[in-house]
């Protein structure tokens, strides 16, 4: 719809919208997270859901203990290699459309345990992360900010066309491969379809 016509109509008291906007408006304001904490970031996540920070103001207070009812996975904390297959399996069991917030340095990159032998160096090696929240741990305000960013991302998603999200593509994979425990590392160590780290190109003179 033409923006000028829309603003002109709204001045006359006529509210216009599209089905897509209504759909995105309703689902971004009822984003149900999975009740799933891994480490100390989960304490901040709990604090964000309590009265002082009150994530309910943004419609995300309904923490679901079952992945079948959750829209949002907040990976809150250190993902050990022991835990990584479970995280991926839980993500697979969530219904589409689903989103992932990597909360804290550990979930993003392994954080202070990056050099350790038993910590996954970022959940984005296996899952498509929508929002990264830096911090160790991030404050509840940071989690709220990440949630608002995610809501803006959802609001901008279109239902049709080439740029429609992954969940609306029939050819997109339903499940991400769950890694298995190898002798030294998870097998495979990362999902090449999800994890595409930027390649740093340095010229010889630099």
């Amino acid at each position, binding site marked *: 719809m033409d923006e000028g016509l829309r603003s002109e109509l709204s001045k006359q008291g006529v509210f216009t919208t599209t089905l897509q906007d209504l759909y995105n408006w309703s689902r971004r304001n009822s984003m149900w997270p999975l009740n799933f904490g891994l480490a100390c970031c989960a304490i901040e996540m709990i604090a964000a859901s309590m009265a002082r920070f009150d994530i309910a103001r943004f419609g995300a207070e309904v923490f679901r203990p079952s*992945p*079948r009812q959750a829209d949002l996975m907040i990976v809150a904390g250190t993902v050990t290699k022991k835990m990584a297959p479970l995280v991926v*399996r*839980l993500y697979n*069991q969530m219904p589409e459309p689903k989103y992932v917030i990597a909360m804290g340095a550990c979930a993003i990159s392994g954080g202070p345990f990056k050099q350790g032998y038993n910590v996954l160096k970022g959940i984005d090696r296996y899952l498509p992360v929508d929002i990264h929240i830096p911090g160790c741990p991030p404050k509840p305000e940071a989690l709220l900010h990440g949630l608002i960013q995610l809501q803006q991302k959802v609001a901008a998603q279109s239902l049709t066309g080439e740029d429609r999200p992954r969940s*609306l593509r029939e050819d*997109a994979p*339903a*499940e991400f491969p769950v890694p298995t425990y190898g002798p030294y590392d998870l097998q495979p160590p990362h999902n090449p379809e999800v994890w595409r780290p930027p390649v740093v190109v340095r010229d010889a003179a630099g």
Partner: protein
Amino acid sequence: MAGAPSYLFLAVLAAVATVFCVTPLVLARLWARWFAPPKPGPEKNAPYECGLPSPGETGVRFHSGYYLYALAFLIFDVEMLFLLPFAVAYAGLPAGAVLAMLGFVLLLVEGLVWAWRKGVLEWQ
């Protein structure tokens, strides 16, 4: 046929109620067909939802002796419920009540003796 119009509104109400209930379901179904392509898979359809694969068989068989044991326990557990107020009020009870209670206990003792002779109390 003076009462006929009053039944017509019932039919209308039933029709409206049906449409009111069915319309959201149909709309949700249509929306799901167009904008929520189903993507089932072995992981997604797994019955267990705590992240771990379920090990072993789900149909666990219990030893049938367990049920006999549990039944015998339950009977004497309930008997305790009756025996405690009986013991508390024992001094003030008439003879008839004591005899009735004796009969009750003897009936249960008879059952216990029967179960004992059947070998219920021995775990096999």
